[in-house]
């Protein structure tokens, strides 16, 4: 059956009308989700967390939001962004005097007038929130106490929020990308639909050698001496270039019948074996041992490693969804229209498989945040200057009397994890067809 372009447009119109009537799958899910009060509240709290982590510089900062010194107006928090980008520099006086000690004519402080790393020298050695704090006014009170070096715990918590959210979101984004790629490959093609010409297979296998060599091995010196991230990107770029070149050659050679013969790759089995292998790796121990050997600790390594290990759940979900979707009529219709396989996968199959994956992502973010908190609790994986919830919690172990260090960071971890778990639960209920009435 051939459906013309006109028909396709009509169909699209119909579909959009359906959506307008609130009949689309997503709308049903949304409606179900809204019935779950706990889930809705956790979604709202999630927005709050996101807001805090995006604006953390304006919430906890030793620099004033706005100030007037010697007749000149400054917006120091905003200015810091410009300085970080190299667009501006600080005047000497800002280096010489602490931010809190300037003579301001007018000043508006951030809600918490400390940065996570500000050392309040008058309040060192674990000052409790209820102690007598040596602060000029209630405005500078350490509401959640300080640690041994006099760092404000509340400011540390705000900074920790940002890091926890960063870790959760970015590591799960990496995991989602990998998971969708492998899941879609396995689910859409199955064991019998991935057909590739002989020469293309050979060329792709052969290309691994020069790609590896010229991308990474021959550049090992640059990788070690230069900026690692940048050199890594260049290496990946060079490797990709080799694959593209070899594929172009393969395309040219495909015209010879012997080389152009098509083979069927059992891609589903291959991917499933890979998933089984990766998921039986003891993740916690592996992450621990990888992070412990990195010489320049950075939060991005943690994100990348979590992402590279935790994609299997998402891949499983996508695969199962695509196995279902693959046999539906609209995929058949798209095939009949002569669309290429990649277009069908990317534009028709995957978008319809994504909603259920949200469940895994929600639970995955929760566990990624937990893992990061545990790593920094052990004191590995993050540069010393970076304050996180896990680190604050660990400080409680060095000073038992500092109850505020034991309670508040843990509460923050608990709340965040609960929010994501509740979201996952809510989504599971909303997507469960048995409950759909």
């Amino acid at each position, binding site marked *: 059956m051939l459906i013309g372009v006109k028909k396709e447009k009509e169909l699209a119109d119909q579909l959009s009308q359906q959506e307008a009537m609130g009949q689309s799958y997503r709308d049903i899910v949304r409606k179900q989700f809204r019935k779950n009060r706990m889930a809705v509240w956790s979604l709202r709290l999630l927005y709050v967390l996101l807001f805090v982590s995006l604006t953390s510089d304006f919430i906890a900062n030793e620099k004033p939001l706005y100030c007037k010194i010697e007749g000149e107006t400054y917006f120091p928090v905003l200015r810091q962004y410009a300085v970080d980008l190299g667009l501006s520099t600080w005047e000497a006086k800002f280096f010489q005097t602490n931010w809190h000690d300037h003579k301001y004519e007018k000043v508006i402080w951030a809600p918490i007038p400390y940065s996570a790393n500000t050392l309040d020298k008058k309040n060192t050695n674990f000052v409790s929130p209820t102690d007598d704090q040596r602060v000029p006014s209630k405005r500078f009170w350490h509401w959640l106490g300080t640690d041994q070096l006099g760092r404000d715990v509340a400011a540390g918590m705000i900074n920790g929020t940002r890091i926890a959210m960063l870790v959760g979101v970015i590591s799960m984004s990496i995991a989602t990308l990998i998971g969708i790629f492998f899941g879609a490959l396995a689910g859409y093609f199955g064991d019998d639909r991935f057909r590739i010409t002989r020469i293309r297979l050979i060329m792709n296998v052969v290309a691994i*050698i*020069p790609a*590896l*060599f*010229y991308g990474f*091995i*021959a550049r*090992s*010196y640059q990788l*070690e001496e230069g900026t690692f991230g940048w050199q890594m990107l260049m290496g990946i770029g060079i490797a990709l270039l080799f694959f593209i070149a070899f594929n172009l050659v393969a395309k040219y050679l495909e015209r010879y019948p012997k080389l152009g013969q098509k083979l069927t790759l059992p891609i589903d089995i291959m991917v499933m*074996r890979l998933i*089984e*292998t990766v998921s*039986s*790796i*003891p*993740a*916690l*121990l*592996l992450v*621990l*041992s*990888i992070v*412990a*050997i990195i*010489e320049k600790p950075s939060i991005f390594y943690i994100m990348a490693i979590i992402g590279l290990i935790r994609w299997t759940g998402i891949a499983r979900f996508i695969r199962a969804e695509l196995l279902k979707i693959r046999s539906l009529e609209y995929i058949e219709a798209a095939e009949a229209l002569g669309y290429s396989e990649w277009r069908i996968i990317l534009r028709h199959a995957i978008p319809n498989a994504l909603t259920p994956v949200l469940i895994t992502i929600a639970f995955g973010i*929760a566990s990624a945040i*937990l893992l990061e*908190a*545990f790593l920094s*609790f*052990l004191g*590995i994986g993050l540069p010393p200057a970076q304050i996180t919830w896990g680190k604050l*919690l*660990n400080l*409680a*172990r060095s000073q*038992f*009397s500092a*109850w505020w260090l*034991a*309670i508040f*960071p*843990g509460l923050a*971890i*608990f709340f965040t*994890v*609960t929010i994501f*778990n*509740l979201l996952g*639960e809510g989504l599971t209920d909303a997507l469960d067809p048995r409950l759909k009435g």
Partner: protein
Amino acid sequence: MVQYLIKRILIFIPTLLLISLIAFGLSKMAPGDPVESMRTEVESSVLNTERVYEEKAEFLGLNKPAFYISFTSRAYPDTLYKILKKNRRATISKLVAQYGNWPQIQTYYEQIRQVELLMEHLETDTLRESLRQIRPSLRQLYLSYRHKRISSLLETIESKVETDSLIMHTSLPGAVERLKRDYLNVRAESTKHLLYIPDIKWYGWDNQYHNWLTSFLMFDFGVSYFDGRPVSSRMKDALFWTVILNLLAIFFAYLLSIPLGVLSAIWKDSIFDRSTTLLLFILYSLPSFWIATMLVVFFTTPEYGMDWFPSLGTGELPPEAPFLDRFFETATHLILPVFCLTYSALAFISRQVRGGMLNVIRQDYIRTAWAKGLGSRSVVWNHAFRNALFPIITMFASIFPAVFAGSVVIEVIFNIPGMGKLTVEAIFQRDWPVVYTVLMLSATLTMVGILLADILYALVDPRVSYSIKKR
């Protein structure tokens, strides 16, 4: 069934290979030199130090090539692994990566050693002070690969050698002169094109990875880099505590969670159900390292007047104390850790039990059982619970590795010398034989757990059969 088992066990192989490769690769990329981390007395002379180093490297099996093959450029020699000192090997490869001329670099590097030997040879009371000023710079040369750094070091050495009146007349200035010439040679005769020719070298079966893997398969886990004790004996001590902790925790978790889960499924939507579900959900989300820290802070210290539990560890009574005393000492030390492990497993298990029961209770045969007039105890426990058992059984196998990982946290916080603490310590000390073994064993445990779950599943549920190919 047998066929299925064999097939499943065959899948273990690539997984374990992958993990062994990852662990091995990590150990090779890790900074620090395992030979140096083994504590021994300091040797004075250059040749002696080298000899001791060689012996230690040989003892740890580090004098072999690392892997079956290497994939580098033509510029690297295939005997690079014979340079035993890890940091020198790294420096040389960085030099090669810049200039690509191995023979010249080798001459230059050998000359540094010659100068050092010569200095040792010359060392007399009169010259000692002057030589001491040169030595640090020379030692630095071993580890320098950037042109700026090397030339400034050479400059310093040369100026010191030529200005010092005592050294001036020895053979040292000549040797240093030669060293400088060798270095200039390295720069002048660079063969950078070699760096862009790929070269795959085969090292044969006698390599570090192969030796480690084969002895691992024969349950010889090697010796710890840290204290030279066999890994297996260290693990045996640690395993004892971990198994005790986890068995107790799993036992209590099942003991509590089965009635909780079953009852809340039967009385679905009652106050009991709602409150337990909420409570368990909260428990499920409570990070155990937080709870553990809180317990340690509040209940093991006199700080808050709640010093109800002994402090960390497992008790310190000597082995000759009466058994009962030792038993109670250990038991009181284990209460808090077992509690932490139990509550997190408890939440997970009873949620599963409740879910399983809910699924079963909807079935027709339960309605039939009620209709037959059977007592509620019979319906619930004989008809419903038996059929809800499957997920619980499956879980038992899969929960074991999970609890094992969980006990890493608990053991570190409560300072219990179990596997988790051993692993974390080994990772921090870069004690790779221990880390390898733990990684491999826990991966095996995970896979065996999953396999066991599948087999148990087939045993409990006659409908499940793995003999038929479609599963």
